[in-house]
Each structure stands twice: as structure tokens, then as C-alpha cells.
């Protein structure tokens, strides 16, 4: 008599066979004591494993995990805040550099003309490299912002400055308040 393979017996135990195969196996099991005995051993293993009791936890693991998560979240918040502050500071410095260059370029132009004794054609080439200040940029009410009492330059400084101050105050205040709450806990 050909016996059932280990694979078939296990799949039968796990109810993983299609009905026609299942019926075929049941018919074989009815006639084969050896296969029946093997199946019974597997059923016994299944029964014993199902009876295994769970072990209780000796302590609550929630607090250590939450503590680590708090630190991670806080660390990310600090990084985000610092990154944002750095970004705004960089923006301000870049804008300052550009506008300063614009303001100073008149002086640069005079420097090129007076101190460097270059032929006129060369002077003109050099002067072309230095950006000409758009005087309107510094006039109140000028295009594109067209705010009557403020120049474009002043508005940009105001906006960036307020954003930086708010970010600094609100961001650091809320993080410090969170830290103080943690210490008092």
C-alpha cells in the first residue's frame, strides 16, 4: 500500500486541501492504520500546542518605550525648529548681501572708474558685471508690492524678520514648556 506523504498529511491537518483531495485522503485514512497513526501524532502535537499557557509580563514596558519615543519626537522637533530658523537666517543674509551689493555698486562703479586705471572699453565691461541698483526697489509704493508707505526692500525685511521672531519665540517656548512638564513629572 502506498502511504500518504508527510506533506499531504500536514496539509490535511491544516485544512489546506481542496474537497476532492480531502475526500481521497479520508478514504485512504479509513483503510490505512499507519497513516492514521501518523495523523493522530500530528493532531496530538496540535492539541498540546493549543494548550500552552501564556507567561505574564513581570513589569509594564510602556513607560520605557514612551520615554524613548518622546525623546525621538522632541529631537525631531528641535531639528525642525533649528532647520527652519537656519533657513530664515540664511534667507535674510542672502537678501542682505544682494541688496547691499546693489546699494554699494555705485561705490564699486566709482572705484572701477577712479582707482583702476583701465582703458574705457575694459571699464565698461567690468561695470556691466556689477549689477545696477534699481532705485525704485528702495522707494515706497514701487512695483511689484506697491505699498504706499513701504518700499519693497522694507517689506521683505519686515516679513522675514517677523517670521524669524515668531518662529524663535513660539517654537522655542512650546518646546521648553514641554521639557518643563517632563521634568515636573
Amino acid at each position: 500500500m502506498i502511504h500518504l506523504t508527510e506533506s499531504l498529511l500536514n496539509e490535511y491537518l491544516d485544512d489546506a486541501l481542496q474537497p476532492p483531495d480531502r475526500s481521497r485522503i479520508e478514504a485512504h485514512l479509513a483503510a490505512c492504520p499507519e497513516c492514521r497513526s501518523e495523523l493522530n501524532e500530528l493532531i496530538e502535537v496540535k492539541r498540546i500546542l493549543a494548550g500552552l499557557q501564556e507567561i505574564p509580563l513581570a513589569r509594564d514596558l510602556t513607560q520605557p518605550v514612551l520615554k524613548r519615543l518622546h525623546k525621538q519626537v522632541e529631537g525631531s522637533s528641535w531639528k525642525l525648529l533649528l532647520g527652519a530658523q537656519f533657513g530664515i537666517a540664511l534667507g535674510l543674509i542672502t537678501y542682505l548681501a544682494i541688496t547691499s551689493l546693489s546699494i554699494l555698486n555705485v561705490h564699486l562703479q566709482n572705484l572701477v572708474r577712479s582707482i583702476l586705471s583701465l582703458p574705457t572699453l575694459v571699464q565698461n565691461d567690468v561695470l556691466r558685471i556689477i549689477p545696477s541698483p534699481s532705485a525704485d526697489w528702495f522707494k515706497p509704493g514701487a512695483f511689484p508690492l506697491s505699498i504706499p508707505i513701504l518700499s519693497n526692500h522694507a517689506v521683505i525685511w519686515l516679513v522675514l524678520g517677523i517670521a524669524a521672531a515668531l518662529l524663535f519665540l513660539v517654537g522655542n517656548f512650546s518646546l521648553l514648556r514641554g521639557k518643563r512638564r517632563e521634568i515636573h513629572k
Partner: protein
Amino acid sequence: MISDERELARHAQLGDLVAFGELMRSHQAGVFNVAYRLLGNRQDAEDATQDSFLRAYRSFPSFDPVRPLGPWLKKIAVNVCLNRLERKGELALDDESPPEGCEPLPGPEEETETRELSDRIRRELLRLPSRYRVAIELRHFQELSYAEMAEAINRPIDIVKSDLFRARRLLAARLKEES
């Protein structure tokens, strides 16, 4: 209860650590037992439990709160334990020695006969090679299908079935020896 858990899961997904803490309290014992069955000692199991919840928190945004949370957490625990066993080099098939520092822990108050049987089963489970132990865990304790088992541990279905069938054969033989 289920809708409470779904609400907590939704809050936890938005970063609410209090909600996540509540979920953890409900499921930590189950996750601990998964880890203990696979690793064999309390300290490693507690560490693996904490790591599992940390990993779960990071993956939480991708979790569908409509699905039950327990099975998802237990799958994470299995993978955390697998990583630990791989790092320790304990995933070899011929490694039949119990993990270091392991001993069956006393179970809850129960009749002597039941406790002795549980101790025997835990001992024999811990004697199984780690891969077989994982197969038993996924099929018998987490009730996954063969396909789900293969997906959970990223192994081919044939290998997973083969591990399971051999694990059962080994357990049957050893439990028969002991009795």
C-alpha cells in the same frame, strides 16, 4: 472595544503618544509571549517587545486601522526576533541548542499537571532550531495560512511549509520520547 481600539489607532497614527501607550498596554503581553516563545529568555523577550513597539510606532502611518492590531503587532515581533536570532547566528537548521540564558518560566497559577505539560512544551519548543520555532509560532499561535506565513517572514512558501512539517515531526518524536 474594537471601535475604541480603532479610535486609539487613528489618534496614534497622528502622533498621539498617549493613545499609543494605551494600545501598547493592551497588547504588550501578547507580543511578549511571541518574543518569549522565539527567544527563550525573559530579558531578550522584554527587549524585543520594546523594539517591536518602537518599530510599530514608526510604521504606524502605513497601518490600516480597520485591520485588527494584535496580529499586525505580532508579525512585527516575529521579524524583530528573527533579526535578533540572525545577529546571534542562531538561525542555522542544525542549531538545536536552546538559546543562551533560556529556561522555561513558571506559568500562571494552574494545576500541577497542566503546568508540567506547559513546561515540557516550552522546553521542547526552545530545543527546536529557530526556523522551525518560527514556523510553529506563525502557524499554531498566530494561525496564519501558509501564504501569510511566507509573506510575514519573506521566505518561499515551500520552505515555510517544509519547516513547519519537520518541526511538527520533531516535536511529535520528542514529546513521545519524554512520555
